[in-house]
């Protein structure tokens, strides 16, 4: 029972690590064709350890992966402008409905 919960949590950690790694790869490699190549390489690296069953081994692999991601992450990742990490976040908040500007 708790084993399934641990595996679940590990699955989620792996997915988030993969997601962040993909986004930062796109930040380093800005053009699409090299990005697809790098993404395939990244996916192949993740797939090598696909069939590991032992929970502790998976834990060690995840920790190693996250450490490597910390080393190689992009210093200024691109974020969608209106997102909380983006540039225009809360730049022009919508005015309340009762305010009208008259010129």
């Amino acid at each position, binding site marked *: 029972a708790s084993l399934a919960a641990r595996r679940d949590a590990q699955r989620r950690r792996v997915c988030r690590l993969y997601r962040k790694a993909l986004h930062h790869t796109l930040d380093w490699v800005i053009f699409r064709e090299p990005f697809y190549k790098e993404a395939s390489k990244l996916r192949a690296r993740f797939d090598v350890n696909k069939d590991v069953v032992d929970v502790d081994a998976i834990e060690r692999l995840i920790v190693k992966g996250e450490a490597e991601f910390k080393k190689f992450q992009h210093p200024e990742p691109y974020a969608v402008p209106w997102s909380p990490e983006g540039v225009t976040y809360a730049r022009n908040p919508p005015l309340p409905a009762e305010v009208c*500007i008259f010129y």
Partner: protein
Amino acid sequence: WGLLGRRWMSAPAQDGISEKEALDRVMMIVKAHPKVNPAKLTQSSHFMNDLGLDSLDVVEIVMGFEEEFVLYIPDEVADKLVSVPAAVDFVAKHPKAK
């Protein structure tokens, strides 16, 4: 007088996209994934159960959504987008989907 009562310096109203357009584009993105069999793809496919995709494939598809609709999808929300109707729902309701 065109400026009278118009809040032209504040954020414009974001309407998002219609359900039908969201469905079309979501299906297009899922079809573009190399591991997806387009014959098996229906409006209510579940990525992992019906299409036999891996969780990492789902991550790739969600990233495709993020890029296509110019959205920011936080991790907790992205965990839940595991089927075509869930994705269409999310995109159609999002006010900033382009």
